[in-house]
C-alpha cells in the first residue's frame, strides 16, 4: 500500500467519494452540498489520473486530460451554482435547505 500501488489511490478516491456522498446527503446548508459535489468530482478526477498512471499504455495521457476537463466542468458548475445560490439568498435571505421546501408534493 504505497505511492506506487494503484490500490492506495483507489482507496483514497473511494474515501473521497464516500465523504462527498455523506456531505451531499447530510449537510443542511447548500454550500455543504456543493462541497460534497466537489469532493465527488475530485474523487473521479483522482481515479482518472490513477488509472492513467498505472493502466494506460505508454504516452497515453487520457486520464490527465480527462482530469483537466473535470476541473474545468467543476469550475463552470460551481459558478452557476453560486449564481443560483445568490438568487435564493436574495429572495429567501438564507440558503438553508430546510426552508427551501415550498416546492413539494
Amino acid at each position: 500500500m504505497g505511492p506506487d500501488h494503484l490500490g492506495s489511490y483507489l482507496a483514497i478516491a473511494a474515501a473521497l467519494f464516500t465523504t462527498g456522498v455523506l456531505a451531499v446527503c447530510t449537510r443542511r446548508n447548500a454550500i455543504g452540498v456543493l462541497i460534497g459535489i466537489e469532493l465527488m468530482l475530485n474523487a473521479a478526477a483522482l481515479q482518472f489520473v490513477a488509472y492513467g498512471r498505472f493502466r494506460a499504455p505508454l504516452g497515453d495521457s487520457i486520464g490527465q486530460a480527462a482530469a483537466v476537463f473535470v476541473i474545468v466542468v467543476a469550475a463552470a458548475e460551481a459558478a452557476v451554482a453560486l449564481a443560483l445560490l445568490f438568487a435564493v439568498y436574495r429572495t429567501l435571505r438564507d440558503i438553508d435547505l430546510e426552508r427551501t421546501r415550498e416546492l413539494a408534493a
Partner: protein
Amino acid sequence: MSETLMILAPELILTATLLAVLLSDAARWRSFAYLLALSGTLCALLASALAPRGTVGDQLAIDAWAALARPAILLSAVLLLMAARSLHDDDDGPAWAALLLALALGALVTAASAHLLPLWLGLELMSLSGYALAGWRAGSRRSAEAGMKYVLFGGAASALSLYGMSHLYGLAGRLDFAGIGAMLAVDQPLPVTAALLIASVGLAYKLTLVPFHYYAPDVYQGAPPLAVASVGTLPKIAAIAVLVRALSSAVPESLVSPASVSGLLALLATASLLVAALTAVVARDAQRIIAYSAIAHAGSMVLALAARPHSSATAAAAFYLAAYVPATIGALLALALLAPTAGRTALVELAGSGQRRPWTGVALVVCLASLAGLPPLAGFLAKWGVLRAALEVGLGAPERSVLLWAAGALLLSTAISAWAYLLIIRAVFFQPAPAQQTTATPPLPPGVAAVLALCVAATLALGLWLSGFAVLLHSLHP
C-alpha cells in the same frame, strides 16, 4: 477536413448564432436578439436536414439516430424561441436566447456523441443552461428554489456518473463506446456492467427515470413554463438518441444477453410508470402533473427500448418522442397563458381559466388528451407502437415475459394518469371562475398562439396520419 465541417455544419452554425446573440446583447440590439437566434436555428435546422452522415474521429457519430434527433432538437428549439419571443417581456431576452441555444447545442453534441467525454460534456452543457433557465424568473422564490435544487441534484448525479466513467476508463483504457464494447467482449462482464450502470446514471438523471426522478416534480413546478418546456424536451431527445447508440455499441447483443438488458430497462420503465402515475393523482399543481407525466413517458420510451433487438422497438421510441415533445410544449404554453399570475399554476388558481381563454383551454385539452393516450391523437399511436413492440417480443419469447408485465404497467398507468390529466381539465374548465376578476385578460400574444397552434396541429396530424409510424420505421432501418 471539409468533410467533418459538412458533418458538423448544424453545430457550427448554432455556435456562431450563440456568439452573435451574445454580441447583440452587448451592442444594445436587444430587440433583434430573438430574430437573430431564430434565423440561426432555422439555418442550423436546414443544415442538419442536408448534412451527410459520418463520424468525427471517435468522438461524434452522426448515424441514423443522430440524423433524426438533430432536426427534432432544432425544431423544438425554434418552437421555444418563437414562444419566448412573445412571452418574455423583460429585457434579458438575448441572454435567455443564448442559454437556450447553449442547451440546444449541448443536446446536439450529446445526441451525436460516441465517446464518454463529449457525452459527459454535452450533458453538463445541457444541465448548466438548464439550471440557469430554471432559475430565470428574477425575484421569484419558487424559481430560485427550483434552480438551486436542479443544480445540486444535477451536480451530484453527474459526479456519480463521472465516478462510474472513471472506473470504465480504468477497465477499458479507452473512453469511446466501441472501445468499451470491444473490452467487454474480452473478459467476464461483471465489473464492466457495474461501471456501465453507474456511468449511465447521467442519462437516467436526464431522462428522469425512477431513482433519479426526484428533482423533476419540484423543478418543473417552480421553473417558468418555457424553461420547463426546454428542460423537459430537448435533453430527453438527446438522452434517448445516445442511449440507443450506447446500447448498440457499448453493450453488443452478442455478449450481454438482450433478455437481461431488457429486463433491467423494463424494470426501470415499470417503476417510472407506476410511481409517476400514482403520485400524479395527488399532485395539486398543474406543472407538477406535467412533470409526473414526463417521468411516465420517459418510462414508456425506455420500455420501447427494452424490446430493442426487435426492429420496431427504436422506431416506437422515436415516434413516442415525436408525439411527446409537441404535446408537452403545447400543454406547458397553454398553462402559461391560462395561469392568472405568472409562475403560479396551482390547480386552485387555474380554476375557471377556461372561460377566460377558451381556445387555449381547448388546445390544453388536446395536448393533455394526447399525453393521456386517447385514440384520435398522436399519444395513442405512440402508446400503440410501444405496446406493439413490447407484446410482439414478450409473446414471442417466454424469457422476455417481463415485457408483458411492463406492458400491463403501462396500461395501468395510462388509466390512473388519465385521472391526473382530468384534474387539470377539471380545474381549467369545470371549476367556476373565482368571483374577484381583477385584471381584464390581455389578448393572446401572436407568437405563442402560433406555437400553440403548431403543437396542436402536430399532435392531431401525427395521430391521424397512421402511416407516420411506418415512414419512421423505414428511415431508422433503411
